[in-house]
């Protein structure tokens, strides 16, 4: 299973996920409330360390954008609050999943991996819709052994 497939399958287990009828990759329909998408934004090598045997441990970070298109009319304060709560909930859920060790893993070491969902905010508004974006990052380590 690829990293993207893992993330996609895992996000689908969020208890509030059922309000999204569709969850795309690199796409979200901004005109149709009740859909979303995951946007991979690449891998960043955070650190590379070598031990005295020549083995190398790299710390990598995958970054994703989670976009969700929800219903919200102009001036709809109640709807906006519900949507904002949903965005907060998914971020707290990601944090809990990461801390309790049930989030998916990507590395090959025993080190604890860190998944963060941060900076959830209103990204765009349309005709009866509001698009929210959450930045998701996964930090993990890979150990390359020299024989």
């Amino acid at each position, binding site marked *: 299973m690829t990293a993207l497939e893992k993330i996609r399958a895992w996000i689908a287990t969020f208890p509030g996920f059922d309000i999204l009828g569709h969850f795309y990759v690199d796409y979200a329909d901004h005109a149709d409330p009740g859909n979303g998408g995951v946007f991979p934004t690449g891998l960043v090598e955070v650190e590379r360390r*070598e*031990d*005295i*045997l*020549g*083995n190398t441990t790299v710390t990598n970070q995958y970054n994703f954008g989670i976009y969700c298109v929800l219903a919200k009319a102009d001036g709809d304060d109640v709807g906006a609050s519900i949507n904002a709560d949903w965005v907060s909930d998914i971020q707290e859920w990601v944090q809990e999943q990461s801390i309790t060790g049930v989030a998916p893993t990507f590395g090959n070491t025993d*080190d604890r991996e860190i998944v963060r969902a941060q900076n959830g905010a209103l990204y765009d508004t349309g005709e009866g819709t509001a698009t929210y974006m959450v930045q998701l990052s996964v930090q993990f380590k890979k150990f390359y052994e*020299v*024989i």
Partner: protein
Amino acid sequence: MADASFISGAGAIKREEFKIFADVGTGSSPEWELQGSRIEDMSLEMNPNVETITDVTGSTEVTLDKYEKQTNVSPYYAKRESKMAAWLYNVVREEKTLTDVEKTFCCVNIFAGSDGAFDAWTQKAVVAVQSFGGNTKGVQIPYNLHWIGEKTFGTAAISNGVLTFTKASAG
């Protein structure tokens, strides 16, 4: 003993070409386990004992009479499959002392000698465990080696990570 003069080639020698193995065997023949995984800095500290005397005429004499060799193995992350980790755990558990904390190690210099016959020596060391526990990266049992006794020189071959040490013939 004649100085070893069989380092060939040119340029810097990679750190991974000097390895220390611990004898973790429990039978009559040694079983070597490589030390140093996830350790970024580990040296054979020579700690030379240097004495400087200036006499009444103003002349200075410097004497180096011995080495108190020591190696700090830190951080040492314990692995379940490691026999050395199990041995260190028992040192901590039983608070072992004296000869119970002596162990034989093999220093292999891959840059010296030839393939399959690297310059090597074995030597005993007192293993002084410094602490047990550590941070959230895993259980750590860092230890210091205080080298004791005579070196036994020989050659080493490493095949698929398995070390074979052959003692040099006398004379």
